């Protein structure tokens, strides 16, 4: 059904279909509905000022209960991972623990950014919009129930302030966060994310083999309908940024009138969830992925287009972003790994320090940073092209779950 009104910030049409990725026609954003949850890019937790973070509000209940429930806001919407993870310090419910066949508790070490999330597995009835998943296996981030094993390393992420969010809603392409490799016997074939914890002492947790049905799961895959993927729909924003942006997280691809693929191009993903991107368009290819949980476009700049990174003696962390002297309008070539699709995508890279001088803006469609130190010579840089949240503004971006049928074929795929 055609939509006649423009998709301005905060204004949406009564029905929605996806639009082209060229940006020439504004994307149409679905209104809240049974399968549509409102999401927002905003300041985040009080006093944190999260830049380019997409947040949702979710509800969890003790399994089988409709009253023993808790609604939690500012959960990061992350298409780069699968699984719901909530900080134990935020959760007020007492959720049942997951145990193995011998009754021993299960826990997980989840690598994230520079650190790891550690904590026990629990089950919960999960709901968002009018979609529900019963007995969903989630991770509670909590280092006090069982001590972190020594092999679970990195910066401490045990408190919402460490993440600047109350949790992570991983709604990516995979059914579980680990999959068959964590069901393999402990050893070189097992990714080593899961542990059984027989006691709360220092060595109480041991690496374990956990069958797929007991792993932390993609909530969307366990809805009774609209369970084959998600669409993130955010309006376009001005080049200088915006203080807050409201959009939609739509459940299902092609399951209702409001979630068809429309003219989006399907990009099938490989076994790791990746496709390819060449920057410049005739340069060497990096593996690439779309990730609403990354808060910039992170990519390697080749030796020929050396984009300076930001420098601030007072805030050394800004070196994670690019600072060209003026905004660059660039183009990259997106391809799948199967030789089926290839097309160019335009994107902008603004001077991040200029963006940050605005005290109120937190949403930017042109924030970017390096995914590798600049190469010292020629040759492939060891880097990914991470199409993070900035890529999503003004587009409807689809993530299809592995093995689930959609009108565009089975997942896993990305489409925009």
């Amino acid at each position: 059904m055609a939509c006649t009104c423009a998709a301005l910030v905060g204004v949406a049409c009564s029905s929605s279909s996806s639009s082209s990725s060229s940006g020439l026609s504004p994307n149409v954003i679905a209104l809240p509905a049974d399968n549509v949850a409102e999401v927002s890019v905003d300041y985040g937790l009080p006093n944190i000022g999260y830049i380019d973070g997409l947040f949702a509000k979710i509800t969890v209940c003790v399994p089988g209960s409709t009253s023993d429930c808790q609604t939690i806001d500012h959960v990061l919407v992350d298409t780069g991972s699968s699984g719901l993870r909530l900080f134990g310090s935020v959760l007020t419910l007492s959720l049942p623990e997951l145990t193995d066949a011998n009754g021993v508790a299960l826990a997980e070490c989840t690598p994230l950014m520079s650190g790891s999330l550690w904590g026990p597995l629990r089950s919960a009835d999960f709901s968002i919009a009018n979609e529900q998943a019963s007995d969903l296996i989630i991770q509670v981030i909590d280092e006090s129930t069982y001590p972190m094993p020594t092999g679970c390393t990195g910066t401490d992420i045990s408190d919402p302030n460490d993440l600047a969010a109350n949790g992570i809603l991983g709604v990516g392409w995979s059914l579980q966060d680990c999959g068959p490799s964590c069901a393999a016997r402990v050893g070189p074939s097992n990714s080593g994310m899961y542990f059984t914890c027989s006691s709360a002492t220092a060595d109480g947790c041991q690496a374990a083999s956990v069958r797929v049905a007991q792993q932390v799961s993609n909530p969307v895959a366990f809805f009774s309908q609209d369970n084959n993927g998600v669409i993130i729909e955010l309006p376009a924003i001005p080049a200088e940024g915006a203080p807050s942006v409201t959009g939609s997280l739509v459940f299902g691809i092609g399951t209702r009138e409001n979630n068809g693929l429309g003219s989006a191009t399907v990009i099938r993903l490989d076994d790791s969830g990746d496709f390819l991107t060449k920057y410049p368009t005739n340069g060497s290819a990096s593996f690439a992925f779309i990730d609403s949980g990354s808060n910039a476009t992170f990519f390697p700049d080749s030796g020929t287009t050396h984009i300076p990174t930001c420098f601030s003696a007072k805030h050394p962390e800004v070196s994670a972003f690019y600072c060209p002297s003026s905004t660059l309008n660039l183009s990259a070539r997106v391809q799948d790994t199967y030789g089926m699709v290839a097309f160019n995508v335009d994107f902008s890279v603004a001077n991040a320090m200029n963006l940050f001088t605005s005290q109120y803006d937190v949403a930017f469609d042109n924030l970017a940073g390096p995914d590798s130190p600049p190469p010292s010579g020629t040759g492939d840089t060891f880097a990914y092209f991470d199409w993070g949240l900035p890529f999503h503004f003004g587009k409807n971006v689809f993530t299809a779950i592995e093995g689930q049928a959609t009108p565009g074929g089975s997942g896993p795929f990305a489409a925009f």
Partner: protein
Amino acid sequence: MQTIPLASTLFRNVLPTCAFFALLLGSSPASAALGGDVSSIGAGQTHLLASARIQRAATHVMHELQAPTGTKVREYLGNDGKVFAVSWQGPFRPDLRQLLGTYYDTYIQAAKGRVARGPVNIELPGLVIHMSGHQRAFYGRAYLVDRVPQGLSTDEIR
């Protein structure tokens, strides 16, 4: 029509070119941390399995080991027998405390306070650490800038 490269030809499977390549079967040199040598392995640390491969070049020796989690770890030793670089690739991030050794605390201090949620790039005088990837596919590398042998490009540390 432009040839689109297959995944198998891209960096995931590319090895650094070296002057001399050798596969030693049955040897089991101990693993070592960044900056350490083979005697720096701690008591009871058998996390890293025996070298699957050893690659020798004029400037260094690279040991490729497999972490218990299936992650491939490479250690680069200079002619002084000390590890000047490490790299890793796999579905789980390896034990950074063990891999970075005495540089682990420096890493923690440098990584705190990051506002970027994406790759980790730490560039300190003398130490570079780069980590990237996503769920199911992590990789990274760390090297001691002043100890990278002359004639070896840091691009080959991967």
